């Protein structure tokens, strides 16, 4: 087994490189992804090695980046699109939900929409506005799309390759606050299927589901809870569409309690969906109501106060106390 320690940013870079080496139909397109290597350097060096025809610096128009990738897909190419920041994806929203999501259906399977839309998302990096949002629910809501989130370098390396190879369109969410953290990457074998949820820490009292940046927050909460004698089972959802409800339900049937931690606001969120689905499926196993720990229903705040907006270990612990309190 070849293991290498690298950051998530480097793991994505290496994963993209490998995907491009494997299939000459794989292209990259985005703003500043060529010479600059992207504002987060995820595509660093790739244009130099694969050329301007395969690593395409795009004019600054997100709808066109996605719309032309649709045309390239019809021609048989697989474009990995980089949306520079989460808050810039909305100009492309129409192309994503009306075209990318529907053309496989409309063409009765003739058009393969095998494109990957990379979305650096979530906050925690002290950015100015429109650079820290969590728009995953918009895409999870849309049939025809799949939505996945990496939270470790190993997942980043493998999930980006699995996404490129997959024939459905994938919104690939990257927690930008985790880009620079190092982890071990297994260069030989993918650890899991692309759409599998994973138990990151086994426990017995409360199932905590998180994705992206919040996985680490949940794991830190599990450390704190353990000191207080409460055992958290932390699940990294990894795939938000489809959701791996089997893994989550199996855990909840054991623990009897569910807390979902997300950086997105609560209303009609992925957290709402997980709580509703688990309630329908595990009603008699639940010892407390499924509970969401979310951001607030306000626009992303100025980042000097973002730590009060994003779920913290304290807020997760508050929810843990509440769900544990129903037995008393």
């Amino acid at each position, binding site marked *: 087994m070849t293991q290498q320690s690298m950051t998530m940013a480097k793991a994505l870079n290496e994963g993209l490189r490998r995907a491009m080496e494997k299939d000459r139909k794989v292209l990259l397109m985005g703003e500043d992804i060529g010479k600059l290597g992207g504002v987060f350097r995820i595509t660093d060096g790739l244009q130099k090695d694969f050329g301007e025809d395969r690593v395409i610096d795009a*004019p600054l128009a997100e709808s*066109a980046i996605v719309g032309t*990738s649709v045309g390239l897909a019809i021609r048989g190419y697989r474009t990995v699109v980089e949306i520079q920041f989460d808050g810039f994806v909305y100009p492309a929203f*129409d192309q994503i939900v009306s075209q990318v999501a529907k053309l496989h259906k409309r063409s009765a399977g003739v058009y393969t929409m*095998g494109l990957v839309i990379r979305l650096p998302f979530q906050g925690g990096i002290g950015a100015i506005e429109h650079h820290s949002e969590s728009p995953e629910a918009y895409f999870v809501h849309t049939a025809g799309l799949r939505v996945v989130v990496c939270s470790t370098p190993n997942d980043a390396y493998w999930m980006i390759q699995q996404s490129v190879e*997959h024939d459905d369109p994938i919104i690939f969410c990257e927690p930008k606050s985790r880009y620079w953290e190092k982890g071990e990457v297994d260069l030989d074998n993918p650890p899991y299927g692309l759409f599998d949820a994973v138990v990151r820490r086994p426990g017995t009292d409360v199932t905590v589901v998180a994705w992206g940046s919040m996985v680490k927050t949940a794991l830190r909460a599990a450390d704190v809870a353990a000191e207080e004698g409460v055992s958290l089972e932390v699940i990294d959802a990894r795939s938000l569409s*489809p959701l791996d409800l089997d893994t989550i339900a199996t855990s909840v049937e054991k623990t009897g309690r569910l807390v979902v931690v997300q950086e997105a606001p609560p209303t009609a969120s992925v957290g709402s969906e997980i709580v509703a689905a688990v309630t329908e499926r595990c009603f008699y196993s639940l010892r407390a109501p499924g509970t969401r720990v979310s951001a607030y229903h306000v626009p992303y705040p100025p980042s000097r106060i973002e730590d009060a907006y994003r779920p913290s270990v304290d807020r997760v612990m508050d929810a843990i106390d509440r769900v544990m309190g129903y037995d008393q």
Partner: protein
Amino acid sequence: MISDELVQLLTPEGERVSHPEYRSELGRDEILGFYRDMVIVRRLCNESTSLQRQGQLALWAPLQGQEAAQIGAGRALAPMDFSFPSYREHGVAWTRGVPPRDMLRIFRATTTGGWDPQQYRHSLPMVVLGDQTLHAVGYAMGIQRDGAEEAVMTFFGDGASSQGDVLESFVWAASFNAPVVFVLQNNQWAISEPTSLQTKIPLYHRAHGFGFPGVRVDGNDVLAMYEVAKRALDNARAGGGPTLIEAYTYRMGAHTTSDDPTRYRVDAEVEVWRHRDPIERVKALLAREFGVHKVTFDEVAAEAEQLALQLREDVLAMDAPDPTMMFDHVYAESHPLVEAGRREMIELGISGGH
């Protein structure tokens, strides 16, 4: 107003006119072929309007008045070229070989598609205005990467010319020198809004601002449309980049069968355009220059009639699909929510076709 900047090779009276850059050298058979195309698509369109009025279609978007723009452009395409239509391009679909019954499936509301777009190299109708122009440019970028000598043509209207996606597609086409021909059918009306609301300059002038040529053509002159489109496609295939063709034409009918044009435009305007009919001028040319007899025109009319009857028969035979078809092809690979929906529908015996 038709300006003198317009490329025209055949007057509304069927007289040839010379143009410094374009000339038509087509013979009798080709021109008769255009005539046949136009007569047939108009007749099929009328039949479709009737079918809608009789409750057999959910909606119809008639093309009357735009036959020359669509047939001229469509016939200029080479077999390996690819076209991306909006929702009124029944004439272009006809030139690509799409069976008329397949064009009507989406309007019969039995599908959201209708044909195999790779088989006919003609994409599916696009109802969100202008989205297809970006697909066309992306496809053209694929052609460049394949090193193929092919071109793409995409169709949109004066209304869609205000859409951001169309303008972005102009930027992309210019920046990447993409082999794409934009055919803007300016039919003067975007439902109730006149072209003057969309633009303060002739629409074809916009191309110059983006860095590629724009040409305004008499969109009711099939010979001019064909020659201008053919040259633009040849230029694109040879690496010359994009062209915008503004087909200056008129929507003789309603926007769709849900529209009432008497609320926003006057009959006198429609009458002016009736005298610029795209079919009559070709008929006059064929009769005078090539001695085509009435019997030939009658044969074309009879063929169109037969196709219309066949279309009616085909449409009436299109039943609502099995509702479980809604779960087919949503994803290329299995998705649990889709499969759960399918199972529920089957288990509960849910129907719902009408």
